[in-house]
């Protein structure tokens, strides 16, 4: 069972670690780096609670190996706030009551922030499509859509 030395840039900080081949990226983030904002909600790659950005693209970190992230950039929810200033997506979720228990929220926000990077004015349908890989049990999605629309408005 080989161990591998990896260097991963997480939220702009480089981390070096020696990890098992089978270590999932989500566990590397949560347990090794103690970035517990990324959550685990299923075992079949459905729920999206583990969504992070890998080189700017949302991926389900439970279905990526830590070794696959060697030499790459990972962005997690902890990196959204910059210098004490909330990201518009974070503001949007708070202003529009886009979260209740908060468990799906980091994944939702990472997916949404990537959407807004490439689509500055998404329609309701485009937002719903973009977050269709992220499950929420609490909100019924209505306010999540509003949160993303709020953030889009702020970014324009």
């Amino acid at each position, binding site marked *: 069972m080989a161990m591998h030395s990896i260097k991963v840039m997480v939220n702009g900080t480089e981390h070096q670690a020696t990890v098992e081949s089978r270590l999932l990226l989500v566990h590397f983030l949560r347990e090794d780096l103690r970035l517990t904002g990324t959550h685990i909600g299923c075992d079949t790659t459905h729920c999206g609670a583990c969504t992070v950005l890998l080189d700017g693209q949302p991926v389900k970190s439970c279905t990526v190996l830590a070794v696959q992230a060697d030499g790459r950039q990972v962005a997690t929810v902890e990196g959204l706030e910059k210098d004490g200033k909330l990201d518009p997506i974070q503001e949007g979720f708070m202003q529009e009551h886009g979260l209740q228990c908060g468990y799906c929220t980091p994944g939702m926000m990472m997916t949404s922030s990537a959407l807004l990077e490439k689509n500055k004015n998404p329609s309701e349908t485009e937002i719903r499509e973009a977050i269709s890989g992220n499950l929420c*049990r609490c909100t019924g999605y*209505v306010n999540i859509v509003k949160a993303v629309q709020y953030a889009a408005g702020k970014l324009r």
Partner: protein
Amino acid sequence: MQPKTTPEVSGMGHSMKRKEDPRFIRGKGNYVDDIQLPGMLYMAIVRSPYAHAKIKSIKTDKALKIPGVLAVITGETLAKYNLHWMPTLMSDTQMVLPTEKVMYQSQEVAAVIATSRYLAADGVEAVEVDYEPLPVLVDPFKAIAPGAPVLRTDKKDKKDNRIFHWEVGDRTATDKAFADADVVVKQDMYIPRIHVASIETCGCIADFDRVNGKLTVYMTTQAPHAIRTVFALVAGHVGLSEERIRIVSPDIGGGFGGKVPVYPGYVIATAASVVIGKPVKWIEHRMENLQADSFARDYHIHVELAAKKDGTMVALRSKTLADHGYADAAANPSKFPAGLFSICTGSYDLKSAFAEVDGVYTNKPPGGIAYRCSFRVTEAVHLIERITDRLAQELKMDPAQLRLKNFIPPEKFPYKSALGWEYDSGNYAGALKLAMERIGYTALRKEQAEKRAKGELMGIGISSFTEIVGAGPSKHFDILGIKMFDSCEIRIHPTGKAIARFGTKSQGQGHETTYAQIIAEELGIPAAHVQVEEGDTDTAPYGLGTYASRSTPTAGAAGAIAARKIRDKAKKIAAYLLEVSPEDLVWETGKFSVKGSPGRAKTIQEIAFAAYTNHPPGMEAGLEAVDYYDPPNLTFPFGSYICVVDIDRGTGAVKIRRFVAVDDCGNIINPMIVDGQIHGGLTMGMAPALLEEISYDENGNVQGGSFMDYLLPTAMETPKWETDKTVTPSPHHPFGAKGVGESATVGAPPAIVNAVVDALSHLGVTHIDIPMTPEKVWRLLKEKGVAE
């Protein structure tokens, strides 16, 4: 309702942004799996592939050879401490770990303790269990039939698989009313098993401190105090004493009733920690969650409704078979084995009714109550709203008109139902008429007629439900003997800020905000200055937790009463400071002023400071109060939902085109939060109606045991919910509020079923069981000759 306080104070009626959000949006929530303790070990559970089997042997040597695997706990281990069985919340018993046989697929068989999560998983694969399969009994009708093999062989003298027989109402009078009626409609309906599937699964960290003899358990629980007391009772004989047990419920990623029961995993992890002396973490995988922990529903209902030919309902009777799995581990109040099912007369002025429910054991996971059901109210409302539409169909009456004809009118409240509940207040016609207006009911019926002529299938369905929440008055409500009051303790600091602790536990309902708003309303202290805490049994006053929409009716009330006690003391302090008698003072939000001399006043902040620096002689210093609130009655929120569906004749797929939900939960604390609860509740009402089901084949193999087949709706399947409100305050609640968290999950499913049946009623379709999968609907279309 216009708020009485300023936005700065943010009392009732303000859509205040949530105080809990800052940590969640930063990914700084503190969920159980986020917590790491020094020396912590990990536990993973070996589970049975068989639904019913003898355990011939458990070999642990391969597992123990894995470096890092420290122990394998089996039923034999726990039997030494008499912990291998435990009581359920319904006073039945269930296994923690088996010593003889397993009774459902995925049952816990052994637990591996290891130094890492990954090694614990490897350990589980390496444990070798030798099973001898036994005949499986999954059909509840077969299980209750005379001569069925007895499943609970652990119960001495048990000769059958019956759990309980419960009945309510006047059978004789009801049968007579049926005999005399012009019209009787009958329907069988099956409400299948479903699972809450909160995005966070269940889990705990049990941490037994050997030096201080104290057990701390961080747990995904909606009811921390009840858990503590159960642990003290169950494990008292091994030295765990209630003052040295601390249950901490930190941030919880959704509960919905699925985080109320005591799961075997919690007990095993605790036993492991006590024995090993290190913290032990156990976090369920999703498949374990779906396959082993508390399910909901599984009711086989037969219902009959009798009426006059003009549509006046006269009587209702029903007989239900409740499949509880191998143990009754539901979390009902103890006198109600079928929960509050007797609300099944619904919003209608039924003169007589009778309902009976029989519980039965089968080879399935134990449980019964969960999934936002308000203690079986989902089942009851499904029953009455479906049979009402059946009656409308039979009489060829518009379902809205039939409902309006039969609603309990406002002047009859408080209303004593035929099955014994006293409904506090209601305005059913008001809600339905508003819903009809919002959705454009008349135009939709016109459109439906036009579409029908062209062979297009469009349906409109109504559900006008009455909910029953806020358990409950001590006269009738207890869980394992503990009465269902709830509590609040408020302490005002010298600088006029406050801390308030409650016996409930939010899992996303926003208590840190809404409870602060209640106190702000009563005392005029800005909600932003009221720190709300829940969930730590070492500090919070005793409560029964948050589920069944009970928090605002009970703990919220306690908060208001405790605040009023503080206001009473504050008045005396103000009188002292102003040198008047208390009767000379008037209160307006945040201050006492002298009658006729409004310039002479003391703010609550000044009074708070004085409570510590200049309190009246003979009076205790400080400014705090506790209230344990015993509600005089339950509260009865209600609503009318209208759903419009279009059916694809080629595939049978049902699309919800529009859904209007008009809810009435009395006076509203935070409209934004209430709407959020409705949106989420509607989604959890749609899901069982169209997508979700857990079922078993004849060998007891679970179907729908992972997210591959247990289908949670995404943003694409979920329609854009439209909501509105009427406000009919509860006359007995301190601030006129009712619970609301589950209304939408209770009210929505029958609206959707009624819509689909309505779309097909001209073809002679009268009922469809949920989930209304495309295949199920397609088969009806085929049968009726209209499939594309």
